């Protein structure tokens, strides 16, 4: 069992950028006055000549990134998920995605685990917003090791990428010795044929703990980690639908527009099965400590385990 590293994915992201930028001189990083929070500040310290704080002006930041990409750079533009994908949606859509420019957009403090800042800062729509844009790759890594590899893959990929970062320090569950990231490929974390749990991002580890807990009760749930929401791994999802019947999706995002709907789009076309959606149930968040909120919104291990039990008891 690999050592557990407790770290927010935003920190892993900042580290990864610094490592990649040593050899890749084209990487430039832009932030909108949140560098200390998004962790691009680490990059700014290490590579001051390639770091540009654009001030509190997200729309312009995305446009500047587009222009730099058009001139051959690999710009990484970071802000909170809310402002990066919300405020600057149309700049991303028209100045980055339409011309297919090589810009990486990092949205930190995603989901309700942003915590005390409350609803205005708890972005639960970013995956949905980014997923609807043609040309856009959408990544939502689940732990330290996955974030580091996903960042490497995002930089290696030539085109627009949105990558979701979390504020909350979380335990790693992947083993760096065996872990491998392939863009667009889901990862089966636990085998089972009673039901399939498809999870993404910060709550993957909660789902993993839940399916392990249920082993003792004789419930064998398959768990798939979808780190790439778009392009989604159609094969792994349709295969699971065929082999296990029902699917449960788990995400720290609105159940509208996010992983749940992405999974439904696959199964409705390829193997219709009943899909149960664990996530933010189309409502706004509120202030509070992150773990208390995750519990209130029923996104933690006990809640996931309960839903799995209910679904298995109900049958196919």
């Amino acid at each position, binding site marked *: 069992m690999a050592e557990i590293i407790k770290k927010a994915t935003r920190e892993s992201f900042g580290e990864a950028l610094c490592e990649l930028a040593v050899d890749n001189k084209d990487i430039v990083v832009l932030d909108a006055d949140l560098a200390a929070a998004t962790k691009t500040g680490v990059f700014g310290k290490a590579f001051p000549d390639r770091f540009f704080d654009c001030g509190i002006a997200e729309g312009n930041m995305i446009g500047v990134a587009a222009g730099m990409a058009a001139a051959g750079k690999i710009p990484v533009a970071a802000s909170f998920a809310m402002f990066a994908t919300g405020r600057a949606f149309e700049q991303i859509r*028209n100045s980055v995605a339409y011309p297919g420019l090589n810009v990486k957009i990092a949205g930190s403090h995603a989901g309700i685990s942003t915590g005390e800042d409350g609803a205005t800062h708890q972005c639960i729509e970013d995956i949905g917003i980014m997923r609807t844009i043609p040309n856009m790759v959408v990544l939502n890594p689940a732990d330290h090791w996955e974030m580091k590899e996903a960042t490497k893959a995002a930089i290696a990929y030539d085109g627009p990428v949105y990558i979701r970062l979390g504020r909350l320090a979380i335990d790693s569950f992947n083993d760096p010795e065996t872990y491998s990231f392939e863009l667009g490929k889901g990862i089966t974390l636990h085998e089972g044929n009673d039901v399939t749990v498809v999870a993404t991002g910060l709550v993957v580890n909660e789902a993993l703990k839940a399916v392990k807990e249920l082993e003792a009760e004789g419930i064998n749930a398959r768990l798939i980690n979808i780190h790439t929401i778009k392009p989604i791994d159609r094969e792994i999802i349709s295969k699971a639908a065929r082999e296990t019947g029902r699917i449960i999706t788990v995400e720290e995002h609105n159940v509208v527009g996010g992983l749940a709907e992405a999974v439904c789009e696959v199964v409705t076309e390829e193997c219709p099965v009943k899909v149960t959606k664990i996530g933010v149930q189309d409502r706004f968040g509120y202030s509070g400590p992150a773990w208390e909120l995750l519990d209130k919104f029923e996104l933690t291990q006990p809640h996931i385990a309960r839903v799995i039990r209910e679904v298995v008891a109900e049958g196919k």
Partner: protein
Amino acid sequence: MVVTMDSSEIKQLKILAAKARMGAVLGTYHAKSGHPGGSLSAADIFTYLYFKEMKVDPDNPQWEDRDRFVLSKGHCCPSLYAVLSLKGFFDWSELEVLRHVGAMLQGHPDMKGTPGIDMSTGSLGQGVSAACGMALAAKLDNKDYRTYTVLGDGEVEEGQVWEAAMFASHHKLDNLVVIVDQNGLQIDGPVEQVGGIEPLDKKFEAFGFEVIKIDGHDFEQIAAALEKAKTVKGKPTAVLAKTVKGKGVSFMEDQVGWHGVAPNKEQYEQATAELQAEIDRLEGEC
């Protein structure tokens, strides 16, 4: 600033600009849509940029050291397309299928599909930010290419223009020239009634720009402004170019209604005849 251009050079530019205007009229007529008014007001600026000012290579549109141009007011691309075609980037016949299904020339500039287009634009306020990014990249790479962008005067109502203006002066982008095509009209009426952008010179000055006010149809003034911009160090330049919307076609001049309406057959023929007469007159003088 004295720029030496003899009268025959100016005459050649005027002929090219008249041809660009014919291209804009031709394109919008065949498209049965598009934006002739602003295309005609900016035609002289586009002509000067591509035929006198910018280092570009039609045989190698992606040349790394080329000067960059971003048409932030993307809807005025018909005359830009005409200028690019006259410069040799693509065939004139493309204008006849402007905005048609499967055509290379889109309703708004598409950098991936059209040689010579450096940035996809169309959503107002965005191009100027991209131009800032290009100018910043040039600085970062120690390259001496310059970046030019043309905005509409209605466009400066967009907040992003001022985010970009702050950014440009903060980063001392003296390799960036922002040209505002001040034709005075926007879709809903005169800019002074709709948006209240004045005093625009004071605004750009307050944002840290060198400001130069010119007649945007006078090639000597355009030349002098762009020459002066090259001598400005440590800050970007804004050229406020007073123009006439619909310039060169009598019945389109200074008419709000010609912002986004295509000429019908009769109007197309009249506009073409007027522009051809102007070309004939200028060539006769040569």
